[in-house]
C-alpha cells in the first residue's frame, strides 16, 4: 500500500509565557491511501496537536515542528512556506472538529462558508456552481432540504446536522485525507452512530484516508483499520484494530481497554481504572513516561525510555512487552488493585431495597415560556419536562438517560427545587418542597446535593480548594475555623486528594481531580440525596472509571441516594439500580437496570442501546438503527412524542399519548405497542 501520509519522528514545541514547551516527541506513523487510522489516548496526550501539525495549523498558536518531517503525498509539509500551505489545507487534507457548534463561524450562513471553501481552492468556479456543489454535498451527507439549510446560520441547526454540514464542507474539495478530531464526542449516541456510518460510507465513495482522533475505543473499534495509541506526547503502541484489542502490547493500552465500562461489566465489581493521571509537560518523569502508573514498572523503566519497537507488523514502546505477550491476561498489579477494593454486594437491585421513598415527583411539568411580552401572553413554551411522576427510594441509584434536550437536567434541577416546577410537586421525605419557606428550603438543601457535568465550570476559579469544599460547612454549620479545616482535610482524603490541595486553586488540577473536589463539596454535609448530572461525561475513560468507583464507594459509605444522569449508557447501567429513559420531556420507560438492557420495551430505549459503540471489534452490529433527530421541545409531536422516529409507529400513536404502565416487575413503559 502506498503511504498517503508519513509522519517521521516529529517533535512539536510551543512557545509559551514560560518558555518553550515540547508537547510532542518523536512521533512517527503513517496512513495508507484509503486507510482509517485512529489516534487514541488520554486527554492531553497530544493527539490534537499532532493532527493540527499535519496541516501546520499549530503555526498560529505559537507552535512549530521542531524536528522530523510530515509528508503528504511526498511533499514535506513541515518545510513548506506558508503561502503554499494554503493550497494543501482544505484541498489535499481537510479537517472536522469535535464541537460542530463552535467550528462554524456563527455569523455567516452555512452556504457561504461551504462555497467559500470551494471557491478558495478553485477560482474558476462561479458562485453559482459552487452553490450547486454545496447543495449536492449537503444532500450527500444526508441533510434534507439542502437549499434551505444553506441559507441558515450555524446557530439554527442542531449539532448532528452541523456535524454533517461540517463533513460536507470538509469533503467539498475532495481531499485525499480527512482528519477528524473527536467528531462525535459532543454528540448523542444515536447521532454518533449515524455520523460514524456516514463517514464510513463516504470514505469508500471518495476513496480517502481518515485520521480519526478519539478517546473512545468503542468508536475506534467500529471504524478504524489501525490504531495508534499516544501517551504524554509519544506514540507508545500501534497495531491493527483487531490485534490491538485482542492482545495489547503496552500496559497503557491494556489499562485503557480495561477501563471501558461495557455492557458486560460486572456491577458487583469495581470498575477498573489506571491509577494516577497523565503527567504535565513540565514534570515529565524520566525513563518511560508511563512508569509511575505502570504495574510492570522496573528499574530500567525509571531510567531508560523504551524505543518504539517492531513486533511483527505492529509496534510498541515498552521494556516489558514480551512479558505482556507471554501472560496475555490481565497484569497482576491491576488485578490486585481491582480485587482489593471490590466488596461484592447482592446484585439483586429491585428486590433488595427497602420500599422507602426518599424523593417523589408528582406529575411534574416544567415549561420555559418564550416570546412573552407586555402585550401578549405566552407565545409558546419549551416543554422541557412534561408530566413526570417518579419515586426514588432511599439508598438506591436511579439512572436517567436520554438524548440531549430530552429534559434530564431540567428534571434534576426541578427535583432539587433549584427551579420551581410549572405544575406538579416534589416531595422530599414526604415534605413538599414547594411549600417550604425560602429559609426552610435552604435548610433542606443540606440533604440534597449536586455534582455537575463540567468540572471546569462548577467550581469558582477564584476560590481555594479548601474554601470551595468548606463552603457548605460555612453556609450551614457554625463550625469554627479549626474544625472546618479538619473536616475539609478529611473530605479531601475521602475523595482521594492530598491535603496539599487545600491551599491551591482549581486551575491547578486536572478535570478528574476537579470532579473529586466537586464531589467532596457535595458530600461535605453528609446529604441524603445526590444528583449527579453527567458527572463523568466530560472525563477520559480511565478517569471516568475512577470517579464512578469513588461515587459508588461514597454511596455505600454514606448511604447516599443518587440520581445519576448520563448519556454514556454503559456507565449508567453499571452504577444504577433502576433506570429511567426520557424522551422529549417525557419519561418513557422505567426498569431495573439489568432488565432494561436485557429486555428494553420502548422502541426508543432499544434504539439507544443499539447505538452504543462496543469496544469489541468482532461484535459489530448494524449502525444507525435510529434515524433523524430529536424534534423541538417547543413543538413536540402529538400523541406519542417518539412516533416521528419510531419504526413501529401506528396511526394510534399520533392520536393518543401513551400512559406509563407496568409490564413486568418494576418495569414501566409508555408505549402503545411495546417491543418484546
Amino acid at each position, binding site marked *: 500500500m502506498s503511504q498517503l501520509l508519513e509522519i517521521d519522528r516529529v517533535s512539536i514545541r510551543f*512557545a509559551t*509565557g514560560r*518558555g*518553550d514547551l515540547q508537547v510532542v516527541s518523536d512521533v512517527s506513523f503513517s496512513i495508507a491511501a484509503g486507510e482509517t487510522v485512529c489516534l487514541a489516548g488520554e486527554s492531553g496526550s497530544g493527539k490534537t496537536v499532532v493532527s493540527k501539525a499535519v496541516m501546520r495549523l499549530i503555526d498560529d498558536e505559537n507552535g*512549530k515542528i*521542531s*524536528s522530523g*518531517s510530515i*509528508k503528504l503525498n511526498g511533499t*514535506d509539509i*513541515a*518545510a513548506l512556506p506558508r503561502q503554499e500551505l494554503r493550497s494543501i489545507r482544505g484541498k489535499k487534507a481537510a479537517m472536522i472538529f469535535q464541537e460542530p457548534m463552535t467550528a462554524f463561524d456563527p455569523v455567516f450562513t452555512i452556504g457561504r462558508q461551504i462555497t467559500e471553501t470551494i471557491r478558495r481552492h478553485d477560482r474558476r468556479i462561479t458562485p453559482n456552481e459552487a452553490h450547486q456543489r454545496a447543495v449536492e454535498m449537503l444532500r450527500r451527507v444526508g441533510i434534507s432540504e439542502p437549499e434551505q439549510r444553506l441559507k441558515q446560520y450555524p446557530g439554527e441547526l442542531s449539532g448532528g446536522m452541523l456535524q454533517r454540514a461540517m463533513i460536507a464542507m470538509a469533503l467539498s474539495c475532495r481531499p485525499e485525507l480527512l482528519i477528524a478530531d473527536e467528531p462525535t464526542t459532543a454528540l448523542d449516541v444515536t447521532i454518533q452512530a449515524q455520523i460514524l456510518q456516514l463517514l464510513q460510507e463516504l470514505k469508500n465513495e471518495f476513496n480517502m484516508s481518515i485520521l480519526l482522533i478519539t478517546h473512545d475505543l468503542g468508536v475506534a473499534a467500529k471504524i478504524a483499520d489501525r490504531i495508534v495509541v499516544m501517551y504524554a506526547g509519544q506514540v507508545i503502541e500501534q497495531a491493527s484494530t483487531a490485534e490491538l484489542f485482542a492482545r495489547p502490547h503496552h500496559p497503557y493500552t491494556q489499562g485503557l481497554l480495561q477501563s471501558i465500562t461495557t455492557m458486560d461489566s460486572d456491577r458487583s465489581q469495581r470498575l477498573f481504572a489506571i491509577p494516577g493521571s497523565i503527567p504535565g509537560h513540565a514534570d515529565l518523569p524520566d525513563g518511560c513516561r508511563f512508569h509511575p502508573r505502570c504495574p510492570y514498572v522496573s528499574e530500567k523503566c525509571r531510567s531508560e525510555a523504551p524505543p518504539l519497537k517492531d513486533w511483527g507488523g505492529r509496534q510498541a514502546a515498552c521494556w516489558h512487552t514480551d512479558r505482556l505477550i507471554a501472560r496475555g491476561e490481565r497484569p497482576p498489579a491491576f488485578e490486585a488493585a481491582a480485587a482489593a477494593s471490590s466488596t461484592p454486594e447482592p446484585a439483586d437491585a429491585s428486590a433488595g431495597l427497602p420500599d422507602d421513598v426518599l424523593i417523589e415527583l408528582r406529575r411534574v411539568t416544567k415549561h420555559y415560556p418564550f416570546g412573552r411580552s407586555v402585550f401578549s401572553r405566552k407565545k409558546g413554551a419549551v416543554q422541557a419536562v412534561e408530566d413526570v411522576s417518579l419515586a426514588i427510594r432511599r439508598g438506591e441509584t436511579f439512572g436517567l438517560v436520554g438524548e440531549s434536550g430530552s429534559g434530564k437536567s431540567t428534571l434534576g*434541577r426541578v427535583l*432539587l427545587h*433549584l427551579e420551581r416546577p410549572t405544575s406538579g410537586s416534589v416531595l422530599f421525605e414526604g415534605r413538599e418542597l414547594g411549600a417550604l419557606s425560602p429559609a426552610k428550603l*435552604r*435548610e*433542606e*438543601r*443540606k440533604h*440534597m*446535593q*449536586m455534582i*455537575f*457535568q*463540567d468540572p471546569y*465550570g*462548577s*467550581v*469558582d*476559579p*477564584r476560590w481555594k480548594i479548601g474554601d470551595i469544599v468548606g*463552603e*457548605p460547612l460555612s*453556609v*450551614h454549620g457554625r463550625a469554627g475555623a479549626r474544625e472546618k479545616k479538619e473536616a475539609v482535610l478529611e473530605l479531601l482524603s475521602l475523595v482521594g486528594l492530598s491535603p496539599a490541595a487545600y491551599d491551591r*486553586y*482549581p*486551575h491547578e488540577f486536572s478535570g478528574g481531580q476537579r470532579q473529586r473536589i*466537586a464531589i467532596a*463539596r457535595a458530600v461535605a*454535609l453528609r446529604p441524603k440525596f445526590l444528583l449527579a448530572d453527567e458527572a463523568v461525561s466530560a472525563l477520559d475513560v480511565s478517569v471516568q472509571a475512577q470517579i464512578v468507583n469513588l461515587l459508588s464507594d461514597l454511596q455505600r459509605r454514606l448511604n447516599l441516594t443518587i440520581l445519576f444522569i448520563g448519556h454514556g449508557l454503559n456507565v449508567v447501567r453499571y452504577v444504577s439500580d433502576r433506570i429511567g429513559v426520557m424522551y422529549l420531556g417525557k419519561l418513557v420507560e422505567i426498569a431495573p437496570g439489568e432488565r432494561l438492557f436485557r429486555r428494553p420495551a420502548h422502541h426508543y430505549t432499544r434504539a439507544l442501546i443499539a447505538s452504543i459503540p462496543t469496544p469489541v471489534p468482532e461484535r459489530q452490529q448494524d449502525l444507525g438503527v435510529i434515524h433523524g433527530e430529536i424534534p423541538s421541545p417547543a413543538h413536540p409531536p402529538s400523541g406519542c412524542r417518539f412516533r416521528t422516529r419510531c419504526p413501529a409507529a401506528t396511526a394510534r400513536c399520533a392520536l393518543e399519548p401513551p400512559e406509563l404502565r407496568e409490564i413486568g416487575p418494576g418495569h414501566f413503559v409508555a408505549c402503545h405497542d411495546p417491543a418484546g
Partner: protein
Amino acid sequence: MREAASVKTAWRTKRTPTTLQRTVPKIVVARWMSLTAGAVVLFLIACALVPQWIAPYSPTDMQADRILLPPGSAYWLGTDYFGRDVFSLIVYGARESLFIGFASVLVGGVSGALLGALSGYLGGWVDSVLMRIVDVIMTIPGVLLALAVAAGLGPGLWNIVLAVAIASLPNYARIMRGQILSVKSRPFITASRSIGASELSVFVKHVLPNSLSPLLVMACIGVGTSILTGSGLSFLGLGVLKEIPDWGALLSQGRGYLTVAWWICTFPGMAITLFVLSVNVIGDELRDALDPRKRRE
C-alpha cells in the same frame, strides 16, 4: 529524504532567531513596563502626600521677573506666565488630580457597579426599570450634570468628582450588568446555590468577584478620563480658581501659550498621560494578580 532534511534545517535556522526575538524582549518589556509604571505611580503618590519634600519651589510663588522661562537648570520644566515653577506646580497639583481621578472612579464605579449588579442579578422588572434609569442618565449631557452638581453643592473639588462620577455611572452599570448576566449562568453559581447558600452570599462571594475584571480595566481608564473631564470643565469655564491648580486646569489654562511657551501645558499634559498609562499597566497587572489562573509565579 536527505533533501528534505536540508530544506528542513534551512527552515529551522530561519525560524529560531525569530522565536528568540519574540520571547526575550517580550518578558523584559512586560516587566520593564510594570516596574516603570509602579515607580511612576509611587512617585506621584509621594507628590500628592508630601509635595514639599519634592518640589524645589513654592507652587504659589509668582515672580514677575521670571515669567515664561524655558526649561533649564534652575527651572527644570520652565516657568509659567505668573512666574511659577512648572515642575513644582505639577508636583503640588498631583494631590488634587489624583484625588479627582481616584475619587470619581470610586464613586462612579462603585455606584454604577452596584446598580448594574442589582439589575443584572435580579433581572425582571427591576432590571428593566434600572436600565431605563441608566439610559435616562446617559441621555443627559455631562455639562448639565456638572452644572447641576456644582449648583447643588457649591463649587469645589467634589463638584467635579460628583459630576464625573454621575456621568460615568451608566457605563459602569452596563458593563457590570452584562458581566453579571454571563457569570450568573455559570455552573458554579448553581452549585453554590444548591448547597443552600443564601442569594446574598452567592452574590457577594461568587458573582461579584468573578464579574469585576472588566470593571477594573474600565476603572483604570476612568481614572484618566475623569482628570480629563475635570480639565474639560475648566476649559468650558466651569472650573474653580484654585491656588494650586490640578493638572487638568494647568493644561487648560496654559493652552493659549502653546506656541509661545509650549512647556506650560505640555508638561502637565504629559503628567496626565504618564499617570493614565501607569495606572492602566498596573491595572492589567492587578487584574491578572486577582485572577489565580493568570497569576505568575
